[in-house]
């Protein structure tokens, strides 16, 4: 009996010491999640999935705070027709942009945004051509019902060839496009998860606007005040 006790005594068993350290560090470290931001989990693999012809990529970071501050935020919200809201959709969020190359030629961008869904955070990535057309949609993270359908290729393919201009009449706050256009034609694969469907559309529009204002840097006049409708 005493021997059994000794076997489990930390002081006398180096193997057990290491084992205990492992388990304690498991308790200490496992729940640690990645810091917020929207990075690809495995850039090498994910870039190849979205741009199979790519030979390399470059990463850079942009933020609304550094690119124009409150005035730029006002313009972005105006174009979005919705306010940036909540604890985590703030002016200083750093956005990671992946610039994709085939040899020395720029063939596109990948950019992701975090979006609040009904049950958790969504991470919506878009693969864009150099002039801002969607060529790929990737829902990296989804917490909620109907994840399989929202992450399916059939749903993703509906976003192909869309541009920011196609979203101009879509109001994410109300979840309607007036008059109906290309966005109204996007089918919700999980009708009972309408909140998450709207969240995805908002994320796509937000993603395209951020790319427009922070990367393409096109001259855009300030849109109408958020919530004022198209």
């Amino acid at each position, binding site marked *: 009996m005493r021997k059994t006790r000794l076997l489990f005594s930390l002081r006398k068993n180096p193997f057990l010491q290491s084992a205990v350290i492992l388990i304690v560090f498991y308790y200490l470290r496992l729940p640690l999640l990645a810091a917020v931001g929207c990075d690809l989990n495995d850039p090498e693999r994910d870039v190849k999935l979205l741009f199979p012809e790519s030979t390399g990529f470059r990463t850079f970071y942009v933020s609304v705070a550094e690119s124009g501050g409150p005035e730029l935020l006002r313009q972005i919200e105006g174009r979005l027709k919705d306010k940036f809201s909540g604890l985590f959709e703030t002016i200083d969020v750093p956005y990671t942009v992946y610039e994709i190359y085939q040899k020395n030629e720029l063939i596109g961008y990948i950019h992701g945004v975090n979006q609040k869904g009904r049950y*958790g955070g969504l991470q919506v990535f878009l693969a864009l051509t150099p002039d801002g057309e969607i060529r790929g949609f990737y829902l990296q993270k989804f917490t909620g019902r109907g994840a399989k359908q929202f992450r399916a290729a059939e749903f993703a393919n509906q976003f192909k060839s869309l541009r920011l201009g196609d979203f101009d009449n879509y109001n994410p706050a109300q979840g309607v496009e007036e008059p109906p256009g290309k966005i109204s034609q996007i089918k919700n694969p999980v009708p009972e998860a309408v909140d998450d469907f709207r969240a995805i559309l908002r994320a796509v529009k937000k993603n395209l606007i951020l790319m427009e204002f922070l990367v393409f840097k096109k001259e855009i006049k300030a849109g109408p005040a958020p919530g004022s409708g198209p």
Partner: protein
Amino acid sequence: MNEKAKISMFTIAWKNLARKKTRSLLTAVGIGLATWVLISLFGFNHGYKKSLDRDIDSLGFQMLVVAKGCPYEAATLMLKGGTGLKYMKEDIVQQIISEKEVESITPMLMQVVFDPNKGQSGGLTAFLGIDPHTYPRIKPGLSFKQGSWFTEEDAREVVMGYEAAELEQREVGDFYLIPEKEVELKVVGILNRTGSQDDGTIFIPLRTLQQIFGMEGQLTSIGIKVDKNADLAQFEEKMLRLPDVQVVSLTQVKTTIMTLVSTARILVFSIALIAVLISVMGVINTVLMSVMERQKEIGILKAMGALRTDIFKLIWTETAILCFLGGAGGAFLAGLSSRVTEYLIRKLLPFSPSGGLVIIEARLIAMAITGVVLLGLVSGIYPALRASRLRPLEAIRTEEE
């Protein structure tokens, strides 16, 4: 007059060093690199210990009781997918709480689920079931950014650490869905950032988590806060007598980790010591060469009335300038590269606590520069003595020959 003499001594020493720019620069760089390694190492020593202390203190308890079994296997299996967790019966809590050494106690249940919708190949999400009455008391340092702890002990509610909430974009009043189980919970609290493991934790009432996962009456661990006057070793022995449990004393864990880390540290300290010795030899060599090359000049200075002490001071000042510049450069480099050093250490070490691993404080920089200058002055004694002992006429003649 004296003030003037001091200034001119420094100016002469500086000009002497400037005459052989490359050699002086290389010597200073050598000293700088040695100082950089030294400061980074001492900074790591201080930072690692501080972060480990904070991580362990943030647990709020000094002892963790887990189910008996091979913890190594359990940890590995957990890391591989949440299977293989060892459980113990909840009634053990009553046995532990009756011990006089126990100040407070908190039972916990950890459950891990595989979420296939996290990234391309899925990922793990961990939940910590806690007792709403005892856990907040054992960890009074936790404060809320929004909301508060659970309303009832079996409430369908969740409290999220700051980073967990940030990742899931949750706020108080939102819903959270447990993957696999499809159970809906209401977010009632978001914790403030703590810089510890709590930032990424998703807390659920113990009873609720037990119900959701069908683990009624089961626990994975019990945190024990021991009375500060109690004999920890004796209490640990007592805990070991309980059936089917394993006791983890966090003080021991800390000591063991520090012992493991110190092995690597001693090795690097040895390398740093060699680097320091090499740079000291470099200083002696540089200053000695400078003395040999300037024999005639030193001879003329002495012929003009310079005392032995003046020559000694001049050579020593040159050494001090070299060492100070090298030391300051090394300190600057250490400060500048501390984040890179930290990143590399995290990559190399199997276990590293959260928070800063390399802490470089002003006191450490001051001590390192002072130490390097003092060491330099010691190494400059021989060349300075040799210069001061030169006989003027011999010195002038030797160089002419």
